[in-house]
């Protein structure tokens, strides 16, 4: 048995229940309201906590990048049981693309020297799905993405990786990075005790300069040139079932000549 130190990348996002908005001037996603823990990240946090438990020692450190020193999403993950957090918050990072985000997160992760880096497959708001693999490359780590099952045996990861046709069994030595799919584990709800304890857990806040990154490396090399509403799909006929709605469906399928 050896202690496991796991870093989990978490994103704090606008509540997905409220519709997203673009800033009309910068054309980047508005992220000024209260942010919450991306639900996709709860799976990584839970998986990390379970791996630390199974190892019999170690701890979970959160790493996040967010505007305005936002910590409310981090507190949720700390309440689940993570020990501490590193937050990179810097005005210069507004509208950062996937590669810039990966550079910042990788620099923050390096400080924690983890055995394992975990991330969700993709965020709920931006869903580029490339950040975890970019972080792995920046840190020179092997990686297994789209993990639906993760175990550590004698310092080696054993992972089920989703594929088009089913799944692959992949083995990988530590240190490494794993991105997990939703459903890999059932995330716990923070307990009252956990929520109280989270309030005093350490959150180290850093800027781009603190990370030793050169701002020139982080300049965006893409530009949003046009934003337009999509052609709306019109809603069709809506009927209330009075016991014969199934016949309407049959009629509709017949009209389309698929029956």
């Amino acid at each position, binding site marked *: 048995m050896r202690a496991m130190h796991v870093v989990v990348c978490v994103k704090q996002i606008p509540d997905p229940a409220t519709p*997203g908005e*673009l800033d009309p001037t910068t054309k980047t996603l508005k992220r000024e309201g209260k942010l919450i823990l991306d639900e996709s990240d709860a799976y990584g946090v839970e998986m990390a906590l379970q791996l630390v438990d199974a190892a019999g020692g170690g701890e979970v450190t959160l790493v996040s990048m967010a505007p305005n020193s936002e910590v409310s999403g981090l507190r949720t993950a700390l309440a689940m049981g993570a020990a501490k957090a590193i937050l990179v918050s810097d005005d210069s990072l507004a509208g950062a*693309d996937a*590669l810039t985000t990966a550079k910042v997160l990788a620099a923050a992760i390096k400080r924690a020297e983890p055995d394992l880096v975990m991330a969700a497959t993709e965020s709920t708001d931006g*869903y*580029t*799905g*490339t950040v*975890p*693999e*970019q972080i*792995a*490359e920046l840190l*020179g780590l*092997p*990686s*297994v993405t789209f993990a639906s099952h993760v175990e550590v045996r004698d310092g080696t990861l054993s992972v089920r*990786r*989703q*594929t088009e*046709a*089913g*799944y*692959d*069994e*992949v*083995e*990988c030595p530590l240190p*490494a990075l794993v991105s997990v*799919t*939703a*459903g890999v584990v059932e995330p716990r709800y923070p307990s009252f005790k956990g929520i109280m304890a989270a309030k005093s857990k350490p959150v180290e806040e850093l800027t781009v300069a603190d990370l030793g990154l050169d701002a020139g490396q982080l300049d*965006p*090399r*893409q*530009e*949003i*040139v*046009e*934003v*337009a*509403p*999509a052609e*709306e*799909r019109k*809603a*069709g*006929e*809506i*009927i*209330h*079932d009075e016991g014969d*709605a*199934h016949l*309407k469906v*049959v009629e*509709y399928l017949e009209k*389309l000549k*698929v*029956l």
Partner: protein
Amino acid sequence: MSLSTIWVHAEAQEGKVLTVTLELVSKARELAGNVEAFYAGDDADAIAGTLGAHGVTKLYTTGGLDGKLPGPALAAALAAQIEGGNAPDMIMFGTTYDGRDVAGRLSVKLDRPVLTNCTDIGVDGDTVTVTEPIFGGTTIVDTAFRCDPPHIGLFRPKSFEPSESGGGAAEVVPIEVPDLGATGAAKLVNRHIEERQGPKLDEADIVVAGGRGLGESGKFEMIEELAKLLKAAPGASRAIVDAGWVPYAYQVGQTGKVVKPTVYIAAGISGATQHLVGMKGSKNIIAINKDEEAPIFGVADLGIVGDVHKVLPALLEELRKRVG
């Protein structure tokens, strides 16, 4: 003006080129004078014919990877080519498991952004612009690359129509995978193929999908029977995949499969943004849901406000009579 060369990530299963690869190749042909592809696998000769018929002139291949994962291996092999002077203007990937891995690693190696979830691409002079739907497809954003080529883009399946150009087999050109160091340490030990009956989810003419409104996992049998009667593929919302009712391979949505069948039947699915992204390109949509306010009714051609536990059994009985 058009681009000179575009590279496309070629993927295949059991010697058959994935449809998304052929879609990208066909689009690339419109934009560039020369389309080449790259492939990790020991059967490049088997797919060179199909790729050539769709317009690929050269197929770069690393050969089999001997258990290494394609992400680091293919990215390193491509980066070595580019550093050696063999560089395209644009590199196109399908949004697939391996496509995202290779594109992510390559973007770091080349220090170039990768634009994702693209559904279209255009070229104006030297400027390459890609289109991406955001906010569940309600808003369309065009983004231009503002750096030196090669540019990297990940494209959603079904964005383009595959078409043949009548070309001969692509020339197979071996490329080397440099030493990967620690990044190549992950090893494939075993592959599991999940058996599915009936048509493939992303190729079926009719898709019947179930969601949380079914109430319990056993009720998914209604979806499977309905699919069978209609010769359709069964699908699912993320909620019931996460809940473990059905395997991930069933999932329709932003994560999961994008489908565009002739008919999509959504039963007990409320229509979260994440789901709508994956199915609202369907030609005809039928939705059955208890909640009149469910967003799925906003995209449905025929919306039934009703209890799936009443409507589905009645529908099944009627279809059994007709189809047998």
